[in-house]
């Protein structure tokens, strides 16, 4: 749905601009620096191409934590930089209703008092497993810590599709550049 050619073109254009800006093609940088510069441009470009989503904002925020990258990002993204950079306030604490929390605690204590071992097994075990994995997913998806369950799944979906597009475009770029080198 969103993996249109225009999306990929926008991404490619931004990425190549990023390469230029970060001077990725010069020989002055080491291999690692070049790789990081390329990755930076690629990530910034995909976030830019996607527009305003939670993960793209989180991504830009994470990238701009490094001071060096900030300048590059600013010039690359231009206006969008301020838009993309944590307008949500990045609150790590999800606002939770006290009433519900209190009731939840009460139910938990009630359950403990009842102490039925069999009932604990199925549902609570499944919940614990799922919770563990959700935590892992939160670390994977940029900006994931401040999201609750639903939006996390939404953002994961979005993020996975954008990653696919990113991989696709980068692979083509690589292929064509390699092919051109083979001509030489």
């Amino acid at each position, binding site marked *: 749905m969103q993996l249109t050619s225009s999306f990929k073109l926008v991404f490619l254009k931004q990425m190549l601009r990023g390469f230029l800006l970060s001077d990725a093609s010069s*020989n002055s940088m080491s291999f690692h620096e070049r790789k990081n510069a390329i990755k930076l441009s*690629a990530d910034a470009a995909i976030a830019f191409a996607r527009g305003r989503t939670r993960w793209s904002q989180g991504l830009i925020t994470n990238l701009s934590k490094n001071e060096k990258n900030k300048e590059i990002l600013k010039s690359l993204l231009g206006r969008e930089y301020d838009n993309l950079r944590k307008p949500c306030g990045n609150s790590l604490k999800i606002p939770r209703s006290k009433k519900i929390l209190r009731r939840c605690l009460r139910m938990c204590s009630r359950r403990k008092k009842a102490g039925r071992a069999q009932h604990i097994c199925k549902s609570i075990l499944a919940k614990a497993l799922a919770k563990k994995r959700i935590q892992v997913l939160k670390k994977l998806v940029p900006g994931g810590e401040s999201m609750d369950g639903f939006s996390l799944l939404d953002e994961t979906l979005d993020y996975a*599709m954008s990653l696919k597009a990113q991989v696709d475009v980068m692979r083509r770029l690589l292929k064509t550049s390699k092919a051109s080198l083979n001509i030489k």
Partner: protein
Amino acid sequence: MEPPRSSGVGIDNSGEYSPEIAETLRFEEEIQSLIHPSSFDGSAAPTGGGSFTALLGLPANQAVELLHDSGAREPLASRIRVGEHPVHRPFHLPLDCSSAFPSNATLVDRAARFSVFAAEGSPASSSGRLKAEPQDSDSPPLDPIPTGPAKRKDTGRSKCDVRLSLSFKSQAKVTAKKSKNAEENTDGDKLPYVHVRARRGQATDNHSLAERARREKINARMKLLQELVPGCSKITGTALVLDEIINHVQTLQRQVEFLSMRLAAVNPRIDFSSLDSYLSAECGPVTVRNGPGGVVVDPSLWPTDATAEATRRLLVPQFWHIDLVPPQLQPQQSLTTWERDGAAHSQLLPNPTTSLFLYDPANSGDTNVPHRTAKLKTAEDRALNL
């Protein structure tokens, strides 16, 4: 992200019967109006308006009986009587509340079956997906089939799910993500709130109801993710699906890293400065090419080729500076003709790309180019024959 619930959603229906009576009355009348056209149809397939009784496939009076089952048992009789007087009903409403209604299993089976029907018939696959979900949630309540009051609760739950699937059809365009929320809101058109029954052993307070709605939401999204991640649709269970998703995302991220590393290795020899002029107007080259020919080629025709062309365009300057060996003149000729003509058929457009890929077999003997589409292959054959 949660939309505001309508005030009537059954979270706070603790003992207020007067609005409930009024609403069930209204609903009854709606049911009557729905029943009449549907009874003429005689078809069990759900209509676009979502006839409730047609959905169940039950005779009208049994369906209405189910509805009346939703409230408390005591005011039920009074409600029916109240409801019957203002409007003359052609068919006989069951006044006998304690009459045996069909057993759980058959009723739930029916609901499930018709939800499957609706899944097949519904235009949006998303609602079809979600249709299976009330079906799935039907099966757990089937397992403990206790007697007595819990029986009512089960039918109540199946009814709740049937009602959910009812609003699915009437909201076929709603996307899967929002459908669960929208369906709770649009239920307010027919019902002010969802009659959700608590399962046996669960508290009926707002918290668990909210939790259950939450769980259903999450399940809906998990289904979407399952479709995205390859090979995930056969897996059942939240934890395993999450595993796969995590795996997939990690793989993609690692691929990006790897590709950027390879690009870094290749990179310094490529001159990116010239590409700015090409990519500054990304739609520009497309129109230039099509201008003289008057052929408007929609970029969406070749979605995979557009990016290939963009990348190729940046390498074009390098082509011209290169001394090509005669065996490779052939592809170069095709290039030049393409450039000169300016008007290319949509089939010739990928030609330079294929000639680009032809270099690989010519030089390195690498014949496996992963992104050769069928169209590219035919264009490639044409290039060879030129």
